[in-house]
């Protein structure tokens, strides 16, 4: 015979629908959302991984100062690689976007055509799908750059630009202002050929099996390559953020989503145990009778655990159905909003199913079984007497009679429900954390943006491209000629222009992600650099100091990007500059350290655009647009996510306060009924039974906010230090915290209204009825 107690379950479910529906909704939304993300991410990662072979993705690329001649190309191929030309030219569109234009690829890094068709003549172009989305470009639109224009004939995904990093040292990609496109050979030839970047892809004849092997092979390849050609940029695939960032970020998102889900399940498991414990208390005498009749603890435990498990199973099934339908598309649209991924086919994901079904069930089972098993340890006799506390001799806390009666009463209610308030505390902490993340990110980004603009050294920093020959001692004559050409080409009449030297080195501190550090050599009487810098002074930017926790007196050791040579500097000051990780010193000192002539320079600071220098010598322009792209992109990528976090936080606030205050009132329904008989009015009963929870909610929220702030600051720092290059400081924004506090209170006020109605509805005859 099957246990007849199971017949109760459906009736319990219907009888307490209010409680179970809110839990069910929260769990379905959480599981659905996370399942959708996992399914979309898994399918997209599959398409991404498959793309390496399908689109014949490079093993790396290098950029040379000049086009390689045939002998050089053959010599490089002799190093065990296949080399392909992938020259590009960057143009600035009339919308101030940078478009990196390639000829349509035919062998390596093939394009995935997502919509439209490939270009057929010199005036047509296909562009990256995401860049088009971000700039609201449609097929048939025209892109203009000065006197040139192209008609967009299609949208593509470049397999070597799944993430639109224009420069590998950038902290963040920029899918708004930076894009890639492809034109016909004819169209490419029509561009200014002096602007060509001589980019070559390489593919090993024997492909590496792992990143470690790729690392070893690339380290062997680089010195051999440098013997043949002058390398300006060298980027093996496993280090190329434009290729790898997407997959890494998918992994991070997955981890974050799983943590989000499991925390919600843990909170819901505790909520469930509070509800079931309350039912056990209410049904103590029935349990006592059943135990006295021979029901085992195990049978009763199974019965009381069934409801949480049933709710979780149903939530998981419906959540997964929604995950594969609605939420998958939602998640895919969010990923497509950030990444240039090829088209994908939805794949059944057994792992996602386990993570969003089996694991929540296990969490729910472990927590409910552990707590309820302890509760059911009480002897049958004590259950029969209605004693449901595990401690036999609970000592009553003495309250002074000087405390007014109503206050003492409320304190008793608080003491009676400490377990419920503990669950609210845990839940509020988590909800506040989500809310803080959602609310503070825009504040942090805005503040960062403002700070960067305030602290700009100059409105424009022109970093010049110095011909490689100038720095190579073995080609003296060539170097001399190039030097003269360079000096002429970069001469300017702009009175705002001020020369500086700049050099790029890399960090060596293994406990952080490797960073490119810009070493600036500034003039001692600089009008742009706002600090007095002596010959021996070494200042570091405030961003560098904050991220690496470096102060005056400390030393920093940096190394050449592709060589082993290291440089050690003693820091003498911090310079307020949030725009990047940088070291500042006297120009002559930097030139001496880097073996350059005393009057060497390779950049201009200027508050007005410099228009009279040869464009081919302009490597990078750091202006407002360039410096703020990280905050712009983060805002774009995480904007939707932050909204989800805020919605979830409000739902959690609502669910927790609704359920816990409902349980408290139900627990006391008999007493409320009795006090009504005695003549207490509904308002007085609210002061006795609702006000304690109100006080606790206000207090708990107040306790949670500083805890959340401390936790968020740590998480933020960890993320920035371990996952991102560059630095963006965490901001403790008090107005945001006040808003968060008020939001929780407003949510609770709605609950208070519901609970007041509930008190009004408790009938006076409840206290007079039999237990049944």
């Amino acid at each position, binding site marked *: *015979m099957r246990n007849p107690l199971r017949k109760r379950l459906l009736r319990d479910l219907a*009888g307490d629908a209010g409680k179970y529906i809110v839990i069910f909704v929260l769990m379905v939304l959480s599981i659905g959302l996370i399942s959708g993300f996992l399914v979309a991410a898994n399918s997209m990662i599959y398409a991404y991984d498959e793309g390496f072979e399908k689109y014949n993705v490079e093993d790396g690329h290098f950029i040379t100062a000049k086009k390689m001649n045939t002998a050089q190309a053959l010599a490089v191929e002799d190093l065990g690689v296949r080399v392909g030309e992938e020259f590009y030219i960057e143009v600035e569109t009339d919308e101030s976007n940078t478009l990196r234009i390639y000829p349509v690829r035919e062998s390596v890094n093939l394009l995935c055509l997502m919509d439209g068709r490939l270009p057929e003549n010199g005036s047509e172009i296909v562009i990256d799908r995401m860049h088009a989305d971000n700039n609201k470009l449609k097929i048939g639109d025209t892109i203009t750059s000065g006197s040139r224009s192209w008609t967009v004939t299609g949208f593509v995904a470049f397999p070597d630009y799944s993430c639109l990093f224009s420069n590998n040292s950038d902290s963040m990609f920029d899918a708004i202002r930076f894009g890639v496109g492809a034109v016909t050979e004819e169209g490419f030839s029509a561009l200014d050929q002096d602007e060509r970047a001589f980019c070559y892809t390489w593919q090993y004849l024997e492909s590496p099996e792992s990143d470690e092997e790729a690392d070893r092979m690339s380290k062997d390849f680089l010195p051999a390559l440098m013997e043949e050609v002058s390398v300006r940029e060298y980027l093996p695939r496993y280090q190329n953020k434009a290729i790898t960032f997407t997959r890494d970020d998918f992994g991070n998102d997955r981890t974050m989503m799983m943590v989000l889900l499991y925390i919600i399940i843990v909170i819901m498991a505790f909520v469930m145990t509070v509800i079931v414990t309350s039912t056990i208390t209410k049904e103590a005498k029935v349990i006592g009778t059943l135990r006295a009749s*021979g029901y*085992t603890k195990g049978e009763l435990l199974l019965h009381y655990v069934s409801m949480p498990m049933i709710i979780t199973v149903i939530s998981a099934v419906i959540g997964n159905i929604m995950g594969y339908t609605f939420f998958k598309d939602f998640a895919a649209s969010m990923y497509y909003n950030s990444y240039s991924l090829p088209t994908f086919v939805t794949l059944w994901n057994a792992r996602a199913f386990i993570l969003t079904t089996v694991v929540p069930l296990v969490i729910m089972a472990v927590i409910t079984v552990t707590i309820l098993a302890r509760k059911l340890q009480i002897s049958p006799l004590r259950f029969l007497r209605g004693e449901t506390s595990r401690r036999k001799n609970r000592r009553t806390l003495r309250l002074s009679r000087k405390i007014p009666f109503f206050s003492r009463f409320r304190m008793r209610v608080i003491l009676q429900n400490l377990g419920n308030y503990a669950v609210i505390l845990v839940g509020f902490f988590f909800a506040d954390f989500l809310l803080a993340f959602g609310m503070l990110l825009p504040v942090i980004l805005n503040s960062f943006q403002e700070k960067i603009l305030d602290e700009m050294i100059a409105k424009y920093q022109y970093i010049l491209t110095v011909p490689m020959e100038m720095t190579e001692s073995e080609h003296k004559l060539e170097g001399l000629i190039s030097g003269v050409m360079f000096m002429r080409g970069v001469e300017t009449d702009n009175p705002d222009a001020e020369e500086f030297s700049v050099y790029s080195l890399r960090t060596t501190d293994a406990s952080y992600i490797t960073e490119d550090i810009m070493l600036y050599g500034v003039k001692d009487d600089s009008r742009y650099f706002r600090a007095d810098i002596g010959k021996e002074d070494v200042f570091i930017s405030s961003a560098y100091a904050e991220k690496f926790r470096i102060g005056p007196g400390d030393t920093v050791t940096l190394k050449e990007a592709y060589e082993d040579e290291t440089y050690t500097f003693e820091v003498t000051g911090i310079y307020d500059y949030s725009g990047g990780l940088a070291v500042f010193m006297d120009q002559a000192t930097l030139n001496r350290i880097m073996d350059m002539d005393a009057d060497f320079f390779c950049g201009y600071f200027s508050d007005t655009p410099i228009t009279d220098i040869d464009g081919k010598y302009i490597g990078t322009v750091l202006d407002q647009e360039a410096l703020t792209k990280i905050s712009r992109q983060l805002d774009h990528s995480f904007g939707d996510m932050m909204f989800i976090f805020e919605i979830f936080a409000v739902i959690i606030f609502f669910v927790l306060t609704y359920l816990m205050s409902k349980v408290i009132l139900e627990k006391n329904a008999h007493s409320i009924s009795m006090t009504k008989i005695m003549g207490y009015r509904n308002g007085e009963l609210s002061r006795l039974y609702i006000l304690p929870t109100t006080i606790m909610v206000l207090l708990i929220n107040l306790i949670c906010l500083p805890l959340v702030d401390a936790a968020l600051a740590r998480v933020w720092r960890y993320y920035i230090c371990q996952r991102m290059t560059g630095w963006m400081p965490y901001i403790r924004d008090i107005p945001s915290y006040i808003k968060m506090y008020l939001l929780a209170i407003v949510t609770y006020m709605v609950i208070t209204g519901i609970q007041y109605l509930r008190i009004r509805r408790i009938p006076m005859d409840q206290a007079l009825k039999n237990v*049944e």
Partner: protein
Amino acid sequence: MFIEIQDIQKSFGQGTSRVDVLKGISFSLDRGEFCVLLGPSGSGKSTLLNIIGGIDRPDAGDIAIGGETMASMKEKQLTLYRRKHLGYIFQLYNLIPNLTVRENIEVGAYLSEHPLDVDDILNTLGLYEHRRKLPSQLSGGQQQRTAIGRAIIKNPDILLCDEPTGALDYKTSKEILKLIETVNQKYGNTVIMVTHNTAIRDMADHVIRLRDGVVRENTVNSVKKTAEELEW
């Protein structure tokens, strides 16, 4: 003898607040006997019933039922013992509020490998027409009848009744007593009923009267009254 109770002692509290509730209770019962435990409030009768029922333990003494001694039983064995041998009826009916009359009785049937027929029990208890009702739709007497049904459906060797008529009016109390009498006669269970109603002693085979934790009277009625004949 079927039930042998030997020198049962039980106290509550410690030090100066210690109260000796049972001070060495001994008696024995035959299988199928109807035993009434009489005594005023605080005499220890409910405590004794709980010890016989295996939901409380004595400080000293032992109980043997069908040759099995309870003192040596661990908690799991006690649960099994209750499951196999005992049916419990309380003053408050302790029914499961969202199960129907029939389902509440099935809760008891689940515990037995060979339960009695539910419809038969429903007819015996006069509950057949109410079988689909929930406890809240029943009168006190009907609820107690359901509780009796839940206790006897598994055909227990011993039926323990703790003030089963305590919350009922005269007429309903007599109905319940008649039912317990019928059950005792029809199914041959040993019934031990705790009551402070002295009139009930006349329907018992065996009367044990307790006061201050000791047995003041242990008599066997040579002439019994039926429940119908009782007056109080």
